[in-house]
């Protein structure tokens, strides 16, 4: 089943064109990573898919239905979006913030019932912030705020997730946990995940397919091994990039090909 389908979509801010002729499909239960250089339009594309901005031209379908057809609330039950900044905190507790994710199901005037509370508890647990539940959401670290944001998104119980740089500002432990969670949500619970990642290794590791954006359009689309070749990545990013094979997994490993120079400082590097 096709979860998301984009047909010749073009996006622009005011009159400035950001992306054009974007067409691809995302299967239900699939993880698709959007990759590409800074400023290429990954966030713009995710915001357009989240119905936060209108495409200039083209059509977007969510589970076969025009994205702009249903009510905002109907969309929110199927589609959840976590922004890049994660700065959606307000002066309330973590639990109250996450509970707002239940709004598409409960409406705006009824208090949470037991089932909602269970979903909130599960979401807090899934991103590992149960112990923060009574804390003020504004007084958390950047990484904690990002996880609160993700828990709120999970509380929406949508079948399609749009995640904008969910691992940015997190340390390796939480990067790994978030990527594990994304993988589990898609491959065990059948959720569809479209995620933008600037870290190509993370994209290679977790995504079923990657969409490489470059110069206002799609440069390549396919599995990480197909898309992430040394020649293509070096050309797209404009710097020499090393692509190697992972010793045990069938994914490419990407390294910046830094031009190392001999140190001019006396003795440095010659300690041995």
């Amino acid at each position, binding site marked *: 089943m096709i979860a998301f389908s984009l047909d010749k979509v073009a996006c622009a801010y005011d009159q400035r064109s950001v992306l054009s002729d974007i067409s691809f499909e995302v299967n239900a239960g699939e993880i698709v990573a959007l990759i590409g250089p800074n400023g290429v339009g990954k966030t713009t594309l995710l915001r357009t898919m989240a119905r936060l*901005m209108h495409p200039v031209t083209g059509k977007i379908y969510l589970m076969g239905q025009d994205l702009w057809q249903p009510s*905002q609330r109907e969309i*929110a039950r199927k589609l959840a979006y976590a922004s890049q900044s994660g*700065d959606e905190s307000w002066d309330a*507790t973590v639990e109250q913030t996450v509970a*707002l994710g239940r*709004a598409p199901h409960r409406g705006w005037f009824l208090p949470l019932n037991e089932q909602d509370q269970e979903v909130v508890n599960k979401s807090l647990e899934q991103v590992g912030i149960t112990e923060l539940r009574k804390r003020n959401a504004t007084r958390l670290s950047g990484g904690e705020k990002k996880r609160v944001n993700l828990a709120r998104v999970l509380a929406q119980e949508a079948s399609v997730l749009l995640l904008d740089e969910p691992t940015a500002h997190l340390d390796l432990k939480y990067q790994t946990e978030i990527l594990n969670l994304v993988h589990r949500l898609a491959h065990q619970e059948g959720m569809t995940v479209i995620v933008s990642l600037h870290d190509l290794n993370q994209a290679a590791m977790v995504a079923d397919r990657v969409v490489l954006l470059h110069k206002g359009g799609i440069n390549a689309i396919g599995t990480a091994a197909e898309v992430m070749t040394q020649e293509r990545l070096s050309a797209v990013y404009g710097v020499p990039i090393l692509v190697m094979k992972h010793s045990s997994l069938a994914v490419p490993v990407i390294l910046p090909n830094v031009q190392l120079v001999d140190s001019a400082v006396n003795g440095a590097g010659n300690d041995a």
Partner: protein
Amino acid sequence: MSRQRFIFWIVILSLLLISTLVISLGIGAVFIPPERVVDIITNPSQADLDPAEISIVRDLRLPRAFLAALVGAGLAIAGAAFQALFRNPLADPYVIGASSGASLGATIAITFGLTWNFAGFGPIQLAAFVGALSTVFLVYTIAGGNVKAGVISLLLAGTAISTVLSSVTSLFMLMNRESTHEIFSWLMGSFNGRSWPQLTVSLPYLVIGMAILWFASRPLDALSLGEDTAQTIGLSIGKTRGVVVAAASLITAAAVASSGVIGFVGLVAPHIARILFGASHHRLIPASAVLGGLLTLLADDLARTLMAPFELPVGLITSLIGGIFFLYLIRTRQRSPRGGL
């Protein structure tokens, strides 16, 4: 804070408000002890009560105190709503031009000696009410309906139009020096001489506006996360923004029309409520209302007793005390381990 604790504190604050109300009814040029005030309110037919005192309490002080508490409550709720809408703790009920529109309306009514009456409003009240609502409508038409442009355009248009209208008001004051004092005292806000007619005229607008905003508690919670996030959890931004602006402006217009521009209550009351009860609007709105009512009532008591028989404008008291209290809050909160405001 648990639900029981919240209710306990709201009851305590409400009792404090009621006691302040009873004391307010007793103080002034003629002092009436609280127990006699209670007698006059609950059982005025008692033979030993002085008819003059009954009249002072029931015709003069009671409607004035009610109006002060109600206007304070309304301004506090409107402030809380605008703070959520703009995600800015410095937003107040006048942020999108209600006070400048009301001031210009009142100034025109005073300068030209208008004598129109409509729906129970006198000429100044009517002009202020219409001025406030039409300014907000203008600001909203220019900027507010454009969801894509974001809420910030509303703030900018409000500031720009307020500046223009304030200049026009100043021009009227300069050109017409004999009315300057009257205009100026109106601009400073006062409950002096307000009685049942002003209360009954403003009451429906204040109560309806406050009820709508309390009803919109959860959408206001969602807006506190930012409009993008609110939208992705299913909130219709355009509709919600329209309803919040309309309800908060109705309150502000009714408050300004009945008692002039009273500053700082709409800023300080929600701020204290947030510190005490958190930012969830289901609690913040009633708590702000009780605190706003209490603060405005106390300010009015000070306004009419500090320099008696001369009465100070209540807006002067709220701004003076509110401003100093705000500075105190900033200082103490900076030093607290939780930091920030």
